[in-house]
């Protein structure tokens, strides 16, 4: 793993969100929902065209060790959700992260998933 060359940041940066996101627009809500799972991509999938911002680098490091949802990434970084979405959409475009959006709602899928949720809850707490 590469060592980030920026200073360690304790508190959330006091920078206007517009600056952090470099003015990029809003990403697709469906693609980056609260429970979309995110992980860092392999090096060979990355298409670096520019230097990552400290915030992007921070997100990338957070999800390098496994999968986290968009909401969890926002919770751990303490960045507003909208900002995290914009940063992630840039990272996705650059091939830095892989996202797994939740399944579309469909009654058949729902019934199967609900069964699984019910069984899981009963096994855990029953």
């Amino acid at each position, binding site marked *: 793993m590469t*060592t980030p060359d920026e200073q360690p940041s304790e508190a959330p940066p006091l920078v206007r969100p517009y600056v952090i996101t470099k003015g990029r627009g809003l990403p697709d809500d469906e693609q980056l929902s609260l429970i979309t799972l995110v992980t860092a991509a392999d090096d060979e999938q990355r298409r670096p065209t520019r230097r990552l911002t400290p915030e992007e680098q921070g997100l990338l490091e957070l999800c390098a060790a496994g999968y986290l949802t968009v909401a969890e990434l926002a919770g*751990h970084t303490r960045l*507003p959700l909208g900002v995290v979405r914009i940063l992630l959409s840039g990272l996705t475009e650059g091939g830095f992260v892989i996202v797994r959006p939740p399944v579309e709602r469909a009654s058949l899928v729902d019934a199967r*998933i609900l069964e699984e949720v019910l069984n*899981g809850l009963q096994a*855990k707490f029953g």
Partner: protein
Amino acid sequence: MDSRPSLDERAYVRGGETQTAVKILVVGHFAVGKTTFIGSISEITPLSTEERMTRAGEAVDDLKGVKGKTTTTVAMDFGRLTLSDRVVLYLFGTPGQLRFVQMWEDMARGALGALVLVDPDRLADSFAVIDLIEQYGLDYAIAVNRFDGTPVYEEAALRDALDLLDDTPVVTCDARDEKSSADALITLVRHLLDRAN
């Protein structure tokens, strides 16, 4: 060496490459016990995240074009339950305030359903939340969170007051207790399954 605080291995979603993430909302008025409920049952220390709102209730993601407007933030808290190698359940708690439209849309989109926490002493405070859940087309169950000293309530009167459908489950729950909270959730999921079949 990594200069950033890194997360414990358990913070990550187990088997993330095969998991389907689903969510259930835990809703109710202020101080009804949402945060307590999520904390009792979540496998991770509950997290919270915020969206910035303009005064008009629109979410803003950058400050472009909103210069001079007052923004406020609204927080939602959430927890996680890994139920198998295929399903990981997220519980999102939010106060029922209609003015935070963007947040509600985010929360409600794709949610399996909602557990509505109700304090029988403050029934009227639950009307707006239930209206909102119905407006977003979510199925729900009522969990009556009985605080110490709350008088025993009549289920029929409560159903009447909240104008519930006959098949809407009503359970009593102590949000501080893991088992009691899990039972309320199980009741909800059974109901959702009945609806889906």
